[in-house]
C-alpha cells in the first residue's frame, strides 16, 4: 500500500519538475516567498507623487516611418516614430515614471484585470506601459496582417509568438520585475513597445502633456525614476507625508 502510494506520487513530482523547468513568460504565477496582503497601504494616510516631465530645447523632427513592406499596413496619415514625442507645451510623452526604491518589503496584491496592448495600423498602442509581476498582459492583433509578438526580456524569459490572423489574442505574464522589457514585431521592423514590469502598482506613463501621478503611496521617502527609451533615466528622492501630494519634475534634453 505504501509503495503504491509512493509510486503514485512519481508522476506528480515529474510534472512539478517539468513545470518548474519550463517556467517562463507565459502563464506564470507571481514569485515571492511571502504572500501578498490584500492592501498593505492604509488609505487614511496614503499620499501621492505628481509632477510633469518636460523636454528642454527644440525637439527633433518626427522620423517618418515607411510601411511599404506590407500593403496591409495602411496608416490613416503619415506615420512617424514615437521615440521622442513632445507636446506643444514641452511635455514629454511616453516616459515611464515609477517608484524605484523605498517600499521596503511590502507586498502588493496582483490585479486580475489584464493590461492590453493593441496592434492596429501596424503600431503598438500604447507604446509604453506598466504592469505588475503576475498580472495578465493581453496582446491583440487587430490588423489584417500577420504579427509576431517578440518580448526581448533579459530577466524574464524571452518569448516570440506568431499571430497570423486578425483577432488573435495572446496572454502573457511576467515572473520578475524588469524595467523595461522591449517588445517588437520582427515582421514590421518599425513596431516596438516598452513594458515596465514591477512588483508594486506605483508607476505611471506620461501623456501628451507630460504629467504623471503615483497614487496611494504610504508615507515615506522614495527614489522615483523617470525612464525614456531614447533620453535615458533620471532619478529623484521624494518624501511623501500623510495624505500629502509630493511633487517631482524632470527635464530631459537630447
Amino acid at each position, binding site marked *: 500500500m505504501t509503495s503504491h502510494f509512493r509510486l503514485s506520487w512519481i508522476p506528480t513530482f515529474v510534472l512539478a519538475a517539468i513545470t518548474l523547468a519550463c517556467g517562463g513568460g507565459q502563464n506564470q504565477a507571481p514569485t515571492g516567498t511571502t504572500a501578498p496582503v490584500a492592501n498593505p497601504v492604509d488609505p487614511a494616510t496614503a499620499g501621492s507623487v505628481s509632477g510633469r516631465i518636460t523636454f528642454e530645447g527644440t525637439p527633433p523632427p518626427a522620423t517618418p516611418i515607411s510601411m511599404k*513592406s*506590407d*500593403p*496591409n499596413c495602411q496608416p490613416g496619415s503619415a506615420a512617424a516614430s514615437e521615440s521622442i514625442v513632445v507636446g506643444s507645451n514641452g511635455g514629454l510623452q511616453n516616459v515611464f515614471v515609477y517608484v524605484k526604491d523605498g517600499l521596503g518589503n511590502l507586498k502588493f496584491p496582483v490585479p486580475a484585470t489584464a493590461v492590453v496592448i493593441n496592434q492596429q495600423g501596424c503600431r503598438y498602442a500604447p507604446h509604453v506601459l506598466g504592469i505588475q509581476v503576475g498580472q495578465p498582459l493581453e496582446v491583440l492583433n487587430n490588423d489584417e*496582417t*500577420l504579427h*509576431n509578438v*517578440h518580448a526581448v526580456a533579459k530577466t524574464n524569459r*524571452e518569448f*516570440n*509568438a*506568431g499571430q*497570423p490572423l486578425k483577432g488573435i489574442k495572446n496572454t502573457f505574464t511576467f515572473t520578475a520585475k524588469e524595467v523595461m522589457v522591449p517588445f517588437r514585431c*520582427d*515582421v*514590421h*521592423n518599425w513596431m516596438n513597445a516598452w513594458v515596465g514590469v514591477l512588483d508594486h502598482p506605483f508607476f505611471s506613463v506620461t501623456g501628451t502633456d507630460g504629467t504623471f501621478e503615483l497614487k496611494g503611496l504610504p508615507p515615506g521617502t522614495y527614489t522615483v525614476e523617470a525612464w525614456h527609451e531614447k533620453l535615458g533615466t533620471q532619478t529623484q528622492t521624494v518624501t511623501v507625508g500623510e495624505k500629502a501630494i509630493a511633487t517631482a519634475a524632470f527635464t530631459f534634453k537630447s
Partner: protein
Amino acid sequence: MLPLFAALVAASTALLIFAGGLVTSTGSGLSVPDWPNTYGWFMFSFPIDKMVGGIFYEHSHRLIASTVGFLMVVLAGWLWRVEPRRWVRWLGITALGAVILQGILGGITVLWYLPDPISIAHASLAQLVFCLTVTIALVTSPAWTRGYARGGAGTPNDAALQRIALLTTASIYVQIVVGATMRHTGAGLAIPDFPFAFGHLVPPQWDAKIAIHFAHRVGALLVLVGILATTGHVLYHHRDRPELTRPSWLLLALVSVQITLGALTVLSHKQFIINSLHVVTGAIVLVTSLALTLRAHRSRFAERAATTSGASAPFSSQSAGARA
C-alpha cells in the same frame, strides 16, 4: 551533365547565402516564430500574399534552403551511383550531411531566439557547405579529370604555391568567421568611420564589439596580403597556366569589390543590400581561393591516385590524373 548539375548546386548555395545575408541584414531572423512550420502552415503551403515585411526574407530563405537541400540529395545520390572515386562519393554524402546540419542549426537559432554562438555556427557552416559544393563541381569537371593538361604537362607541382594558397584560403575562412561574429553580435558599426577608427589608425577606446570589428578590419588586410602573395606568385611563375591565372585575376577583382563593399557597409550604416552583397562576395572570394588552391594541389591528387593504384612512376602528364 553531372559537373553542370554540381555547378548548379554550388550556384544555388551562393544564392542561399545571399538570402541568409538579407535575413540578418533586415533583422528578420525572428519574423517567423515557428520552425519548421511557418505561422502554423506547412512550409510549402504558406500563402504567398502573407509573405510581407520580414517574413518575405525569412520564408524565402527557408524555401531556397529547402530547394538546395533537395538538390543536394539528388547530387549525393547521383555521385553515389556514377562516380568511381570513393572520396568524391563521400564528399557528396558529407555535403548532404552538412546541409542537413545547417538546416537544423537554422531551426534551432529561430527557436532559441538567435543565440550568438548558434547563429555564428550557422553562418560559418554555410561557408563550408559552399566550399563542399564548389569542390564537388570542380573535381567532377572534365578539366580536372584531364589534369588541366596543356602541351603534355598538367598543373605543376609547386610546393610554395600549394602552401601559400592553402594558407590564404584558410585565412579567408577565419576572416569570414570573424565577420560572422561581428555581424551576429551587433558589432558591425562598433567603429563608425572608415578607413580610420574613431579618426585614428588604431581605436583610442576598446570594448568587445570594437575589438571584434577591428579584428575584422585587420583580418581584411591580412587576407589581402595573402591574396596578393598567392596571385603574385601565380602570375610571376605560372602565367602560362590559365587554370591558375584565371582564378587569380578573379580573386584580385573580387577582393577589390569585397573591400569596397565592406567600406560601403560601414559608410551606409549597414544598408541591407550592400551588407548582404558583402556577405555573399566574401563567400565567393573564399571558394575562388579554394578553387585556386585545389588546382594548385591537382598533381598531388594524381600522385595519391597513382600510389593507391600501385603505380610506381611519379606523376607525369595528363594520364596519371584521369580519375584522381
